[in-house]
């Protein structure tokens, strides 16, 4: 990356060490990676002041998380950086899958049209962090950004969490109503608490190399592709991945096997010949190299009283499917409106149980998918390897076998259908009015409103009653804090929604729906109370 990206952030002396009187904070966030920064912005957009504590003063070293999926882009668009990310990022178009020398098949990575955000972009984590820091600075009265402020201990009770923080100017203490631990896979907060982080470890070692290369390796210049090899001819017996990031940076992942020596494999005299075998004789320079092993693990509980685990501190997955960074942003999306409602007194603290329920489900789904991809890529026995190889062999001719090839099931939002906050469809609901894409618990599907406007940016932040090709129910003004969005029938609206009235949560998920003639202000009010945790099992 350019030198400018590594400019350290300004470290200021904190008021606590300048003689200011003690201040009680609403929310303290530990960690200023993408998850902590996104959480700070989301809470600020709900008018909740936060203090963000980072143990360092720069963006991440190396590109790290680079794949951002559509749902994550929708969320980051709600947070004000989505358009910037898409403008800077590389939008994938073609994927190619190779088995040995041969291309097994290629596929189009673009989804059906009529969505503001693309299916996926590649963008280095340090760019995302820079965009989020700049966005966070726009909330100077709500977000107190404290770089090089390292939390060294904490003490939580029923009334709040007390943090001890170390700085170059000395140590100080603060108390916050809630603390969000966004401090990553090695979470010091989690370790201090001695919480068990259970899961499965994998023996395979992988090499990640980012190279800067000005000649395009893909056959059609200007059309970025994603190439995945099983048994690449240049790297015996393993898998390899090549895809493009902005600024002519290419990411190469090489599966090294379980016996690789991580220190040895990082040396340029080992790395460079491997890369030359992928990209040929095009000139390139190494930007970042990392050798890693991974595991799939999660905390049993994400909510520990007033201390909340978010992102990698709560759950880690293998990188296949890009479910780490994306899953963490989904956590933020799920948690922040709930925390804001609790702090504003419109919901009881028990609403946090639904974060556990909904994101626990998300973490399990992400772990299941990423473990499945890992097993396909690193078969654990000879017979598993044989099945894998025969799937690859059959896939050249038989479409069904292509769908069994698993080099990572790319991150998609999980459905929250049937969970506590959602109102199940009335039994009398005539399902022919509705389409599966807009079932209760799903993210509201996007669609174009006109040539300049999209639906999703109109949803979120507050509860919305979305009326699709139907009469707006009377007296909705009686519902506090609810806005109404009404859209006309269109080919896309009919295909994704059908027609009716939908209650949309602040995280753009559908909490309830009714056929037009069943939607009245009482039913909507009941569903909203349930979505704020008043339902069974979540009563205050």
């Amino acid at each position, binding site marked *: 990356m350019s030198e400018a990206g590594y400019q350290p952030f300004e470290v200021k002396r904190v008021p606590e060490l300048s003689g200011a009187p003690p201040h009680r904070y609403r929310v303290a966030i530990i960690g200023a990676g993408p998850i902590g920064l996104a959480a700070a912005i989301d809470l600020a957009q709900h008018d909740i002041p936060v203090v963000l504590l980072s143990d360092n003063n720069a963006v991440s070293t190396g590109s790290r998380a680079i794949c951002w999926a559509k749902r994550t882009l929708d969320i980051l668009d709600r947070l004000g950086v989505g358009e910037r990310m898409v403008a800077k990022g590389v939008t994938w178009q073609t994927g190619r899958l190779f088995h040995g020398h041969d291309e097994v098949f290629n596929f189009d990575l673009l989804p059906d049209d009529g969505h503001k955000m693309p299916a996926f972009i590649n963008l280095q984590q340090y760019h995302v962090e820079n965009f989020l820091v700049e966005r966070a600075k726009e909330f100077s009265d709500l977000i107190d950004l404290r770089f090089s402020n390292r939390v060294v201990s904490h003490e939580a009770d029923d009334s709040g969490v007390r943090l001890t923080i170390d700085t170059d100017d000395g140590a100080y203490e603060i108390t916050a109503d809630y603390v969000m631990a966004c401090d990553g896979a090695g979470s010091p907060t989690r370790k201090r608490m001695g919480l068990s982080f259970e899961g499965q470890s994998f023996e395979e070692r992988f090499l990640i190399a980012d190279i800067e290369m000005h000649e395009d390796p893909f056959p059609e210049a200007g059309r970025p592709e994603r190439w995945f090899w099983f048994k690449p001819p240049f790297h015996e017996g393993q898998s390899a991945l090549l895809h493009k990031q902005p600024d002519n940076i290419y990411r190469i992942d090489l599966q090294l096997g379980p016996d690789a020596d991580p220190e040895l494999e990082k040396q340029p005299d080992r790395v460079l010949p491997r890369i030359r075998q992928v990209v040929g004789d095009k000139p390139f320079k190494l930007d970042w190299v990392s050798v890693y092993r991974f595991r799939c693990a999660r905390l049993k509980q994400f909510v520990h009283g007033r201390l909340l685990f978010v992102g990698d501190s709560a759950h880690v997955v293998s990188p296949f499917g890009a479910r780490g960074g994306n899953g963490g942003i989904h956590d933020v999306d799920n948690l922040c409106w709930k925390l804001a409602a609790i702090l504003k007194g419109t919901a009881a603290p028990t609403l946090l149980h639904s974060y556990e329920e909904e994101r626990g489900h998300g973490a399990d789904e992400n772990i299941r998918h990423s473990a499945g991809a890992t097993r396909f890529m690193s078969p654990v026995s000879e017979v598993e390897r044989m099945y894998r190889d*025969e799937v690859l062999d059959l896939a050249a001719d038989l479409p069904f076998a292509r769908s069994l090839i698993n080099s990572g099931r790319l991150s998609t939002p999980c459905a929250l259908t049937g969970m506590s906050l959602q109102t199940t469809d009335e039994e009398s609901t005539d399902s022919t009015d509705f389409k599966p894409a807009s079932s209760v618990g799903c993210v509201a599907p996007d669609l174009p409103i006109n040539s300049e406007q999209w639906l999703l940016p109109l949803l979120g932040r507050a509860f919305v009653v979305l009326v699709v090709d139907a009469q707006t129910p009377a007296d909705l003004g009686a519902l506090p804090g609810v806005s109404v969005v009404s859209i006309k029938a269109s080919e896309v609206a009919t295909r994704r929604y059908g027609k009716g009235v939908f209650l949309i949560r602040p995280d753009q998920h559908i909490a309830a729906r009714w056929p037009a003639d069943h939607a009245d202000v009482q039913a909507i009010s009941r569903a909203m109370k349930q979505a704020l945790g008043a339902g069974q099992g979540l009563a205050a």
Partner: protein
Amino acid sequence: MSLITDNNLGPDADAVYTSLLDAMQGMDAAQACRFNTRLVLILLNQVGDPSVIREAIRLAHQGINEQ
């Protein structure tokens, strides 16, 4: 739909069984293993119904455990 355990091949059962054996004739153990793997994959897709497949897996597994 549940797994069919009665004869579903009718009067052709013997001929179908023979064609399966014929296909593997002359193969060494490794080739036969590959062949069977491919055949399982193709038939799994033909059956489709996950509950039927799980039932078949359970039945096949049971036989192995009993030995």
